[in-house]
């Protein structure tokens, strides 16, 4: 245990990131101390058994089965027939599939781009201890309590072209045909997801912003830095790990968005909002083509894994660099 880390523990509470340290900066035995008091070892493997069994049963086994199914033709009635690469060949010639993957990525990117700045600003604002902020935050977190389905139904009603908001605000919405064009339909999907999930990420940032040591701000004030400068030079860098965590959540969520599409657009107009997860659902539970659906599911797993890995790599998240450096 280096003196550096010992000293660190006497200061402000360590950021969550340092709790899950992988070796490297730990002690000579390669086991970092988990901050639970001196001399406490990492818990034994036994603790992980229930979770591992659960994960294996409900995630790994189905994943393997889906992989097997993706090489078969199955309509759910007769026994599956193995047809080798047929499903995959069909998929790669399928313009809708490529479009759906592209749409999934587009929705995800738009979601991250819209929600991240919003939730950082809101989170940092909500981290203050003034009473009015607490009240407003509480109101603001209400969408978190609602189910996605309920929220989608609600917005569908609000955006009805003849009886909803568009009918009252023709100067803004024109004929109100929001679900009849790709651009506006995608816009609605991004908006509804933002409305529903920004509070979740705001909550993350609120917690993270409150964990930033006050010492830093005091020092900056002495040096004459204003609020804006403090935000960019202290708060943002300190939020780094939270940003990455939140983004990974957004990306995984974005790639697997399903219920908003099911209720708001049904993938329409035509196939203009048919994202991969919805396309998979259509193939499986509308067309009873479980083989192709399984192949789409696998593709989605692959795409999500690759994107997550790239993000982790690029952000240096895997190195778990402490945010406390420079203290």
């Amino acid at each position, binding site marked *: 245990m280096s003196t550096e880390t010992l000293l660190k523990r006497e200061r402000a509470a360590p950021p969550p990131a340092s709790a899950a340290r992988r070796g490297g900066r730990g002690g000579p035995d390669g086991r970092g101390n988990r901050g639970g008091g001196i001399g406490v070892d990492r818990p034994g493997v036994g603790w992980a058994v229930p979770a591992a069994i659960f994960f294996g049963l409900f995630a790994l086994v189905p994943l393997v089965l*889906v992989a097997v199914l993706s090489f078969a033709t199955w309509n759910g009635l007769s026994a599956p027939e193995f047809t080798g690469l047929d499903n995959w060949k069909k998929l790669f010639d399928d313009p809708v599939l490529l479009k759906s993957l592209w749409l999934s990525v587009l929705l995800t990117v738009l979601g991250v781009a819209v929600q991240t700045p919003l939730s950082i600003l809101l989170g940092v604002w909500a981290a203050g201890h003034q009473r009015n902020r607490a009240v407003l935050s509480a109101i603001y977190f209400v969408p978190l309590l609602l189910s996605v389905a309920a929220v989608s139904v609600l917005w569908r009603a609000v955006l009805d072209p003849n009886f909803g908001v568009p009918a009252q605000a023709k100067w803004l919405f024109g004929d109100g045909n929001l679900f009849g064009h790709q651009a506006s339909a995608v816009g609605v999907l991004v908006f509804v997801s933002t409305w529903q999930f920004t509070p979740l990420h705001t909550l993350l940032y609120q917690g993270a912003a409150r964990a930033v040591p006050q010492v830093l701000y005091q020092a900056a004030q002495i040096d004459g830095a204003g609020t804006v400068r403090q935000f960019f030079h202290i708060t943002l860098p300190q939020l780094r790990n939270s940003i990455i965590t939140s983004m990974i959540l957004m990306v995984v969520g974005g790639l697997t968005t399903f219920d908003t599409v099911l209720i708001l657009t049904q993938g329409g107009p035509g196939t203009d909002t048919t994202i991969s997860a919805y396309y998979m659902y259509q193939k499986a539970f509308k067309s009873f083509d479980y083989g192709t659906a399984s192949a789409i*599911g696998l593709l989605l797993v692959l795409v999500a894994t690759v994107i997550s890995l790239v993000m982790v790599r690029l952000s240096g998240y895997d190195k778990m660099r402490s945010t406390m450096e420079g203290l």
Partner: protein
Amino acid sequence: MTLRARLPKSVAAGGAALALLLSLSGCGGGSSAAGDDDGKIHVLVYGDSANKVEKQLIATFNKKSKVKAVLDTIPGADYQAKLQTIINSKQAPDVFFNWGGGSIKPFVDANLLMPLDDFIADDPTLRSKFLPSVFNSAMLEGKSYGVPMRGTQPVLLFHNKKALDEAGVKAPKTWAELLDAVKALKAKGITPIALGGGDQWPTLMWFEYLYDRVAGPGLFPKALDGNTTVWESAESKKALGMIRQLAKAGAFGTNFDSVKFTDKGSPTLLATGKAGFELMGSWEYSTQQDAHPEFAKKDLGYTTFPAVKGGKGNADNLVGNTNNFYSVLKKTEHPEAVADFLKLQYSDEFVKEQLGIGNLPTTTNTPDYFDKAASPEYAKFQFDLVKKAPSFQLSWDQAYPQSAATAMHQAVQQFLNGQLDEGGFIKAMQALPIS
């Protein structure tokens, strides 16, 4: 777009995979199983408000029968998907609700259903008590697979009498009159025709009728048999041209793709006089009675789809859901009891009760009980239409196998909103799977 907004992929796909496991290993619990016979017949129906009549009929049946019947329901719109997952398992019912045509074709292909011809040979009333045009739509490869239950649902042209009066037009009898009515209503500043394009299947109804009126009832069955060249025929192109002409004339307004029937969007347009017409299944009437009772009583008018001059189709032809049907599984242990149960579907009690909840049975004794219907006049109008219809085309998305429905819905939506041209639409229809 986050954690909670996801379809747990492993669960959805895993569900399919688990179903696979279960079907392979033949395990899986459940109380109702035709496979391991519990001495009862299980009747599976679509779960909705009509179940009270089915419950009553089963009670009647159980009074007399040694073998008792049990009613199982699958509520909600995923009836077909859930049916498909249990029909080849031990949880399979003995008798089940369906829409005839393509909805049971996969089961017939998988050799799961019992042809009813032997039952009919034993007791010819099982066929003769029903209107032929309806009974025949559950025939596949020349064998009968379904006995009508619940009621018939032809698609009719509904209108708002007040809105039509104000625009000075009458309910149209011909295509030309419809176009004139569209112009007059548009000049009044209202949407001529309400269309729930967001649901896609209401759009399909326009295609079904125009194809019938222009090309006659023969074209569609040919396409369904795999003769896809009919989609390129001159009649097919003419029908498409007429749909395009109607849309170009502004008949549906511009935002129809954002309107739905299922969230009461298009019925409300009609009821509030913001639209003049709506082409919809006969359930429009009960929908309006629930949502706008005043309008349903006073101003809701209904007619048949207009005639097309020079077209091959008879103006009396209908399209829509011909009926719901009961089909029987091959592996049922109690065929005699099932046959007795099916005979209840034209009993006087059945007809009275169905009319009472707004359904219109298609038995030959239905006219005796019109006075029991919520709207005797409406019931009689429909029944006479169905009776004299030379052809009653099952809705396209029900006639084709389920696997074609999504692509078909997309094609009609894209053609109407201009994303697909004539050639693109024809290609899309030719690519539909027929088995």
